[in-house]
């Protein structure tokens, strides 16, 4: 915006003397702003507020957002004073979460991809606390098809490699006898940001498709074809607005938006629709987890055994420093206590919020593991939860 030539001419002619009106207007505006600011600052002085910052995976974003909102309404007492704990979790992708917790600009991170050895070396002292389980679906937007198209990991790999380009290709019709497939071109949608969901998806494609080699596995790869979108919500949105598209989206988003998802064949040979039940089945057989401070790099619940298990399921982790003073001066004893109490609440009471958002509750074995992890968290050497 700029001043037009006519206005410049007017100004050049001169202005009225006296800046009274202008001063009044400016003063009014500033007073309004001050009022707004103060109204925020002068919140009920009886409740003190603790803010905890988190960043990371969009995979569990709906659930953590619900936790953050519910937990802020839980009345707590710290130091004898009524306190509100506000968890501010920013869903920016697993890669960003790991980067930010490594730089200690946030208090905890979320990631569906476990830490790689290089990431563990860059951030010593980070422990994994699996807080929920989710499923990665193959979601598509084809007007003439209903939900439940049969697809295998091998065929999906071919699609994402750009080798299958139309919906009515032979490989897809072979899996779906009796279904009329359109001849339109497939538009592939993938993540443009560094994503744990991408890691899970590409790990699965690597297992199922020989052409999907290990250089194409990771949070952020060079996608052979397709359009990028940011976050699970971005990919879901892109699929919804692009006809004849297909992409990978976490289950919660597809249910929330009534999207069409594919049935994937699991190792038992059954065609499984992603759902709360089939995701829970996938996690049920997970045994022998590593210790929280150990290496979770080989943990995977892809292709788990079980007749009803959905093959593309994954744990998702909260990453916290075992010794919270690693974060630096912004972490206080009270905030550390608040964080630990929130984590405890999340793996116990918080689990009941999962079903409505299509996240299965943690199996008992993982809850016990998490309790051990939370008990091990210290601040200045003092444990925070007995």
């Amino acid at each position, binding site marked *: 915006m700029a001043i037009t030539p006519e206005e410049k001419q*007017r100004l050049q002619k001169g202005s009225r003397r006296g800046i009274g009106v*202008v001063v009044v207007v400016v003063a009014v505006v500033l007073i309004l702003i001050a009022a707004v600011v103060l109204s925020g*600052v002068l*919140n009920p002085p009886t409740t003190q507020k603790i*803010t905890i910052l988190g960043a990371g995976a969009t995979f569990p974003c709906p659930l953590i957002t619900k936790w953050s*909102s519910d937990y802020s309404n839980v009345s707590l007492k710290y130091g004898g004073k009524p306190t509100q704990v506000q968890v501010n979790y920013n869903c920016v992708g697993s890669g960003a979460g790991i980067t930010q917790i490594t730089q200690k600009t946030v208090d905890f991170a979320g990631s569906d991809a476990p830490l790689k050895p290089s990431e563990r070396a860059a951030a010593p002292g980070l422990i994994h606390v699996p807080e929920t389980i989710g499923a990665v679906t193959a979601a598509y937007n084809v007007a003439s098809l209903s939900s439940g198209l049969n697809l295998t990991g091998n065929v999906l790999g071919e699609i994402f490699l750009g080798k299958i380009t139309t919906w009515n290709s032979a490989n897809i019709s072979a899996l779906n006898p009796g279904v009329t497939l359109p001849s339109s071109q497939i538009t592939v949608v993938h993540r443009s940001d560094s994503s744990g969901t991408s890691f899970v998806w590409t790990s699965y494609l690597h297992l199922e498709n020989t052409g999907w080699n290990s250089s194409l596995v990771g949070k952020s790869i060079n996608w052979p074809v397709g359009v990028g979108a940011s976050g699970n919500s971005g990919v879901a949105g892109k699929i919804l607005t692009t006809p004849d598209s297909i992409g990978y989206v976490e289950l919660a988003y597809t249910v929330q938006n009534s999207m069409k998802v594919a049935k994937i064949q699991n190792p038992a040979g059954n065609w499984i629709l992603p759902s709360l039940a089939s995701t829970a089945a996938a996690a049920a057989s997970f045994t022998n987890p590593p210790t929280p401070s150990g290496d979770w790099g080989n943990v995977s619940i892809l292709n788990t055994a079980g007749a009803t298990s959905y093959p593309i399921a994954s744990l998702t982790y909260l990453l916290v420093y075992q010794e919270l003073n690693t974060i630096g001066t912004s972490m206080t004893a009270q905030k550390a206590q608040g964080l630990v109490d929130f984590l405890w609440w999340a793996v116990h009471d918080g689990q009941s919020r999962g079903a409505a958002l299509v996240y299965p509750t943690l199996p008992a074995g993982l809850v016990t593991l998490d309790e051990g992890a939370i008990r091990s968290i210290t601040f200045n050497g003092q444990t925070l939860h007995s």
Partner: protein
Amino acid sequence: MTFRFDRDTRRRWFDVAMSAAALACVGIAILPLGSILFEASVRGAAAITPSFLTLPAGSGGIANSIQGTLVLIGLTGLVALPVGILTGIYLAEFGRNRIGGAVRFFVDVMTQIPSIVVGIFAYSFVLELGVAGIVSRRLVFSTITAVIALSTIMIPFVARTSEEALRLVTTSTREAALALGIPRYKVILRVVLPSCASALVTGGLLGIARVGGETAPLIMTAFASPDFFTGLDQPIDALPLRVFRFAISPSLADNRAAWGASLILVVMMLGISIASRAVIRLRSVKR
């Protein structure tokens, strides 16, 4: 008169055609503006309810985003307006020499820095301070860092508009005041500044409108927040950031909320723009 399709007629028809084309260009430009305002009004109006405007983002409203934007432009204005106007005064009153020319050049350079680069700077600067231990690293995601970024955009802008405003005052005005024996600084403060007050105010308002709509620097500094403003060293929400977050969400409710928030934002920005032009109209001397 018989009709002849000769050169003159061709020229006249061409003239009419080109005038029509020019008018069409105006129409083509107005089309997207009309579409944006129309869509924002229609799609956004559905989302704007009293609870939308009073609840924070954690509960589905945008009240904290509106508060955040007001806090950010208030604080940025507080920092950038005095600094920018003083710099403009330097450039207009004391800067008519080679040194002043160099300063003017560098201030111009600053106005052209893309806003995403300003965001990078603010983040890197505060992170360096955090790594050096001077402040907590957490400060990269805070109101202060966002204000640093926005001020860096607004200061050179206001400096240049203030200089242009001060230059509108003729030298004879200054000479007349000096001839009366008024000290120079009083001449500037009491004679020159009030004379161009409307232009100064306009420049300030346009600067505020400019930073109020900025999103790119906020992505990497403000962090957004589900809650109301909690402190200068805490993350803060803002309308443009909220629009961006809602826009890329697949949920239809969020998309409607994005239109609602953008309607509020556009109304605010247009309001400031219209106010600044009204200041010029109302306060310029008609002859």
